[in-house]
């Protein structure tokens, strides 16, 4: 009885302001945040929140907020800190996307600091003499690296929207690299899994191995003096500290010596693109998300549009009916993705048509509630290739209601495995995101059309989907995830769990996920789908496959007063760190 009183009291006290109003699609009100109905609870803060895939980086961001920095200051500090503490995905030598929502103007802008193809890149650069893709060159060579964009992107965000000096936001990352930090099981395991890749060059061996040839282990303190030096150069000289001078020379020399393409001129010419966000609406929420060259935002909106024709809430969140409906929408969107997307600076992406309600309504008509449509009936296609997971997303909000969603990456775990000698950071293998041979599947099993063929200066197609949901112009959910081609469906499910199923952001994060990417015609699922649900899905005609866990969502909800952070349990070490009004973080 005491419990019942407790829960009644609390439902009265803590009604979350981001209540969805009921719509024809049959949504329900969101639940108050702290109730013992749900097994999962977000972390609560009063003055802001930082959620990233590594606790140390989240703490760096929270300290910047506590010092009076805004969300952009904190996000830039977290971006540099993750380059130190999450070496498999956090980076200086990669690229990514940042969505910034500014409370004062109400606008949301997308910064595109995706890597660009070097000037010397050609459409056939990854084909061998027989015209076949040279997989090793495509993925793990110096040639696989695009011109890095992260440093330019973070610094542009800081100078345009930040308030703190560059030296202040870079200081924590410099300290972490110089003084070192204790390796956890998660990082040590990730390193061990890429042992062969990371032992290919002397600089990589020096960074990840002891002098006696053994690899770094969990519990050891890891210092990265070269990386600290590079960070110091950036602190001192800004983007020129990376794109010109010593660091640029070190990159170019290593490229020249190893059949790579990036030159000092490529680096000096790198530009961040500022793009208008892709917009959508779902159950009364405004969706602000990443435009091309991310395919993520467009297809996220497309799937939300299709799904708004189905009563997901009535179906229930963990049911075969609901998973089936999602899988069918995913197939339709991923079939389109294979044809239509690429760098908008090089290809006219039919974004408006893909995200239109009219097109979604037509697609929704094609979904049979009881039967899985064979992928081949949607469009012709070819079979898959393996999958990669390693990108990272982090979310930041400050007390003013500014919000930042950043997803950035080296592409594969530890990128191409090449550490720049003397500069201490890994390079990406983002060139593997171009179609090496248009019409054939890329390493993620996705089929890229000519829109995503290699061209000098072009940005490869990406699935990264940093997203902000707003209600009445105010950000209520900041979210995003790594996961290669599964990013879009991961973000989709986090949003659906909150918006359609009324889960708190943490429960929405813990719920089992599925993924269907049209080709191969398989319904991937995480452990946690009930036996009855699996049997029903099979009866609908799906071929199920249990896969590794999907994504790593780092998200924040805001009710105008309190911040609710959720770190994904799928990757150990992630943490939501709140900022409290009393100053200091509990």
């Amino acid at each position, binding site marked *: *009885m*005491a*419990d019942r*009183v*407790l829960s009644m009291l*609390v439902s009265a*006290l*803590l009604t979350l302001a981001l209540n969805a109003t009921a719509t024809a699609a049959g949504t329900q009100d969101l639940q108050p*945040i*702290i*109730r*013992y*109905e*749900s*097994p*999962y*609870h977000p*972390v*609560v803060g*009063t003055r802001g929140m930082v959620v990233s895939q590594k606790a140390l980086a989240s703490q760096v961001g929270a300290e910047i907020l506590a010092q009076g920095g805004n969300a952009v200051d904190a996000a830039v500090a977290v971006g540099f800190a993750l380059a130190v503490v999450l070496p498999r995905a956090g980076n200086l030598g990669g690229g990514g996307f940042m969505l910034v929502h500014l409370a004062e103007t109400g606008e949301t802008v997308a910064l595109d600091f995706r890597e660009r193809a070097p000037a010397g890149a050609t459409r056939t650069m990854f084909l061998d003499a027989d015209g076949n893709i040279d997989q090793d060159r495509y993925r793990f060579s110096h040639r696989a690296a695009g011109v890095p964009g992260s440093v330019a992107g973070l610094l542009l965000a800081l100078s345009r929207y930040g308030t703190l000096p560059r030296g202040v936001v870079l200081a924590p990352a410099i300290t972490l690299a110089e003084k070192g930090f204790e390796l956890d*099981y998660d990082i040590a*395991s*990730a390193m*061990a*899994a890429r*042992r062969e890749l990371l032992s290919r060059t002397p600089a990589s061996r020096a960074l990840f191995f002891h002098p006696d040839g053994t690899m770094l282990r969990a*519990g050891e303190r890891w210092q990265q003096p070269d990386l600290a030096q590079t960070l110091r150069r950036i602190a001192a000289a800004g983007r020129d500290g990376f794109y010109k001078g010593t660091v640029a020379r070190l990159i170019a020399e290593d490229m020249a010596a190893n059949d790579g393409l990036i030159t000092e001129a490529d680096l000096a010419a790198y530009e961040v693109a500022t793009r208008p966000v892709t917009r959508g609406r779902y159950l009364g929420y405004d969706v602000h998300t990443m435009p091309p060259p991310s395919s993520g935002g467009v297809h996220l909106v497309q799937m939300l549009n299709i799904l708004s024709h189905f009563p997901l809430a009535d179906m229930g969140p*963990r*049911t*075969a009916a609901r998973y089936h409906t999602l899988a069918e929408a995913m197939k339709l969107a991923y079939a389109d993705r294979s044809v239509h997307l690429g760098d908008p600076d090089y290809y006219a992406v039919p974004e408006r048509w893909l995200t239109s309600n009219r097109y979604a309504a037509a697609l929704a008509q094609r979904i049979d509630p009881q039967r899985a449509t064979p992928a081949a009936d949607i469009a012709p296609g070819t079979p898959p290739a*393996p*999958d990669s*997971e390693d990108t990272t997303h982090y979310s930041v909000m400050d007390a003013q209601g500014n919000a930042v969603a950043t997803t950035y990456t080296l592409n594969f*775990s530890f990128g191409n495995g090449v550490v720049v000698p003397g500069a201490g950071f890994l390079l990406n293998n983002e060139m593997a995101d171009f179609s090496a041979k248009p019409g054939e599947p890329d390493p993620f099993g996705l089929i890229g059309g000519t829109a995503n063929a290699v061209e000098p200066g072009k940005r490869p197609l990406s699935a990264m989907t940093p997203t902000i949901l707003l209600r009445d112009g105010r950000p209520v959910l900041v979210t995003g995830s790594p996961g290669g081609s599964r990013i879009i469906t991961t973000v989709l499910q986090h949003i659906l769990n909150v918006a359609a199923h009324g889960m708190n952001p*943490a*429960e929405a994060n*813990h719920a*089992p996920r599925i993924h269907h990417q049209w080709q191969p015609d398989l319904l991937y699922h*995480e*452990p946690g*789908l*009930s*036996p*009855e*649900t699996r049997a*029903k899905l099979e009866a609908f005609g799906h071929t199920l*496959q*249990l*896969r*590794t*866990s999907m994504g790593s969502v780092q998200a924040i909800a805001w009710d105008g007063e*309190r911040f609710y952070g959720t770190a994904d*349990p*799928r990757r*150990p070490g992630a943490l939501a760190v709140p900022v*409290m*009004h*009393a100053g*200091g973080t*509990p």
Partner: protein
Amino acid sequence: MIERRPLRPWPFTAFAVLLFMTACTGRAPETPPPAGEQPATTAIVQYDKIHHPQLAQRGIVVSQNARASQIGQAILARGGNATDAAIATAFALAVTLPRAGNLGGSGFYLGYERSRGSITALDFRSAAPAAFDPESFRDADGIIDRARFRFGPISAGVPGTVAGLHEAWQRHGQLPWAELVAPAEQLAREGIPVSADLAFALNAANGLLRQYPSSTAAYLNDGQPYRLGERLQQPALAEALRLIGAEGSATLYGGTLGQRLVAAVQRDGGVLQLSDLTRYRVRERDTLSTRYRDHEVFSMPPVSGGGATLLQMLNILSHFELGTLPRGGAEHLHLLAEVMKQGAASRRSGLGDPDFAELQLQERLSPGAAQRWSRLIRRDRARAVSKVQPLLPPLPESRDTTHLSVVDSDGNAVALTYTLGYSFGSGYVAGDTGILLDNQMLNFYYDEPTHANAFAPGKRMMSTMSPTIVLDPQGQLFLVTGTPGGSRIVNAVLQILVNAIDYGLDIASATQAPRIHQNWQAAPSGDAPWQPPALQVERTLSRDVRKALEALGHRVETTQTIGSTQSIMVRGGHLEGAADTRRPDARAAGY
């Protein structure tokens, strides 16, 4: 003040079960998912599942509060053993988790000593004060009106926690006693930031706490509920902890602190006397154990009704090849629900304080009984609850207890569950002592004088708390677990064991799996006709499974979450901790 009994780690009852139990099916883990294309050479962290345990190499503490877990971990890192860490964590929880962590409540300690291979069970359950007179609460209809001693000083039993922790330290402790109490004293004195969960709990109990000036002073902020992020300082509690640190438990059981506590209780209408405190004894009990699929499961004997019920259910389950049923599906959960019905029915009858009543434990835990019960279970249909056993009136059982688990670098383990009864117990802080008292007097039967759990002065009231330790088939420490949850305790622990042993899950996944709870009797609500209790499920259970359970004849009802298990599994040379996400702030802290 401590009564010692000879240590008998293999009590006859358990031994009999061990000898005669029929062969069991082996473990049938789930087919592992295909590894990624880059399989980790060290398989410690793999991304093949949603939830991961907290890994540790040397020692780990898992409790319902992160700060308390860290304090326990620091004690381990300083060279303390599992008992030292458990004590320090328990004292810290009295500060950081005041709704359940306590000095004025009671509980059970289960300790595994690796060098001797033995398990010790300490019973520091509350006892009825000598002067408690139930007759004074008999109403005009001749019924004892429990509402009159539900809260306040009158509802409190003789507290056992401080005596229990001190006894555990005297037997197994390594570090100086004062060092184990000091971190809690410091927290109480300097204050703790109020978390969302603590603010929520204090808010919910606001009406109760403001009835007593001493409680108002302790847990309200100038008369207002504490808010998230504010600092809660507990100077009176700090002073009590200082005395306990300096003088040991003697200060409460007859010394300065006890005299002040008794004076306050008597002034405020309670019946506790100094002699209740001086007479209070920690009891060492013979641990209960049974063999389940080649694992040795140890749990708390009466006055806990939990351990006996847990072992009884395991004995029944061992007649079924549970691991072959798809995990989390209706067949699996149906079987558990049927076993839970039997367990819950039996738990009501024949259990109580063994110092006051003859308990039929041997029969209850015999292989023959398990086999008889197993034959009553039908795989294709839910049994009507009314057919399970004759009815007995229910006792109110609170979910607000708390459990902690510790393993140290020598492989010793402690499972400790303790409670105030309801959330914040009696709601009554004893004067200026800062000590919240429990409301355990509700947990006796008053209208069934022959029942094993019928009230008697000095007697301990039955409890469901079930701290549990499991050894693997090689006799090595495998699992340390326990949970709050009133009647849900046994069923939550059962599901941890089944997930870990029958399905081979890691401890995080075993903890996160949706839980069910089948009680055997619903609380009567006024004059409403009696309703057989529904099969309670957590909201994370798929509706698809729910429908299948309904087709088997279960009435299914979504409830609040079930339990808050704090567990440690020893696997592959690592310690793996899992704090239950069902309550915020819980954390595993290892090193």
